[in-house]
């Protein structure tokens, strides 16, 4: 009860946070029909900047980190990515009105990861002064890639069974595609630069100070997009909306649990547990949709994109992040 009151208090407090304020503001002005537009070129550059910032920082810190500590959380990430896709596909398969491959693609997107949500969580943790190991954001691909591969493999297996029309897709080519996607390759590049060069000055004068501001613009864009894609959601069964609302919370809670185990076993930090939960709760907004469109062409994009952009992402940002921070404070007594 106390915990609930505490959490509700925090939730209201978090909505005061400019990060979520920009998200809600974006939804609001889109709903009111504002013609405000942030150019595509700016959006692409902001995403690049955030990923480089996260990557460089991670790379610089990994240099003197004990990477063995990373093993357990990385394993947890793989398990979560695989588990979310299997669970989601199974649930959708129970609903007759949902086409099999649409369900698999949607579960794949929610198993994959959003860099924007991750960045927002990092800023909010910082505002609450909750620390985490610098390599935590590098868990991203450990969840993202297995989730996408599994979804594509499942969908193709299903198509072959059903109609003999599925094409064989090698999982190695999906791994390569994921590593080459703009999001993952920007983060890996950042990590490499942080590891092998001395980017302190450029990091301190550019990537770090601009991070918070660019993130605010990104949140605004996510909010506007969430609203403007809601009509796609209306074209498909309401079950997608239900899944997109409940899924992130459950996925995050499962990840929180696994993170807690890692905390007990290898001393995984409280902030790390929160980030792991947010990574699990997030869904892939940048590279996931085109990857799925290309690899599962029979799946209806309106289903998975509507669910993810219009419901899943706002829920991950505005509900899950505050929820897991509050939970961490209670559980770890911060």
């Amino acid at each position: 009860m106390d915990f609930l009151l505490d959490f509700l208090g925090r939730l209201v407090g978090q909505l005061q946070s400019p990060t979520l304020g920009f998200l809600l503001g974006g939804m609001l002005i889109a709903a009111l029909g504002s013609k405000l537009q942030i150019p595509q070129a700016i959006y692409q550059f902001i995403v690049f900047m955030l990923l480089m910032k996260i990557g460089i920082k991670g790379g610089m810190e990994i240099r003197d980190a004990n990477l063995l500590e990373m093993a357990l959380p990385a394993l947890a990430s793989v398990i979560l990515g695989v588990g979310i896709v299997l669970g989601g596909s199974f649930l959708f398969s129970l609903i007759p009105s949902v086409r099999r491959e649409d369900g698999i693609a949607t579960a794949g997107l929610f198993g994959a990861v959003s860099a924007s949500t991750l960045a927002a969580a990092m800023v909010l943790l910082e505002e609450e002064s909750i620390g985490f190991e610098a390599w935590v954001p590098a868990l991203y691909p450990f969840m993202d890639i297995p989730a996408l591969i599994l979804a594509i493999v499942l969908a193709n297996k299903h198509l072959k069974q059903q109609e003999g029309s599925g094409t064989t897709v090698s999982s190695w080519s999906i791994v390569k595609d994921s590593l080459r996607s703009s999001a993952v390759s920007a983060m890996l590049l950042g990590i490499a630069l942080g590891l092998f060069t001395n980017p302190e000055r450029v990091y301190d004068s550019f990537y770090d100070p601009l991070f918070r501001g660019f993130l605010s613009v990104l949140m605004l864009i996510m909010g506007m997009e969430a609203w403007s894609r809601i009509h796609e959601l209306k074209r498909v069964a309401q079950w997608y909306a239900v899944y997109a609302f409940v899924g992130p919370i459950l996925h995050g809670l499962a990840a929180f649990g696994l993170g807690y185990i890692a905390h007990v076993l290898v001393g995984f930090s409280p902030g790390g547990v929160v980030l792991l939960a947010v990574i699990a709760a997030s869904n892939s907004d940048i590279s996931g949709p085109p990857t799925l469109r290309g690899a599962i062409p029979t799946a209806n994009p309106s289903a998975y994109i509507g669910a993810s952009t219009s419901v899943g992402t706002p829920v991950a940002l505005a509900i899950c992040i505050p929820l897991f921070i509050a939970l961490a404070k209670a559980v770890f007594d911060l």
Partner: protein
Amino acid sequence: MTLHKAIKVVVITEIIISEQVCHTIESCGATGYTVVAAGGKGDRNVRTISDRASVVEEFRNIKIECIVKTHDTAQLILESVAEKWFRNYSGIAYLEEVEILRSDKF
């Protein structure tokens, strides 16, 4: 100079498969093609040409035009593209008659 009859094949489809469609077109015997960014509305969806930031950018259209010398090649391209791509991706395709200067170029 005399002009020669030729056929222009036009394909409008999703930008995400543009490279593969161009490959299909070339494999049917085209010597070149021209592409233009496009938006539009059809059975499936509305696609924009605005520069507005959009998280799922790759859902836009592309218009591919390709001039070939014979109606047969044109029809082959049309049928190959439709057969191979239009079951799973949105798109339309059509032919137009054109007149060209030098027929050795195509």
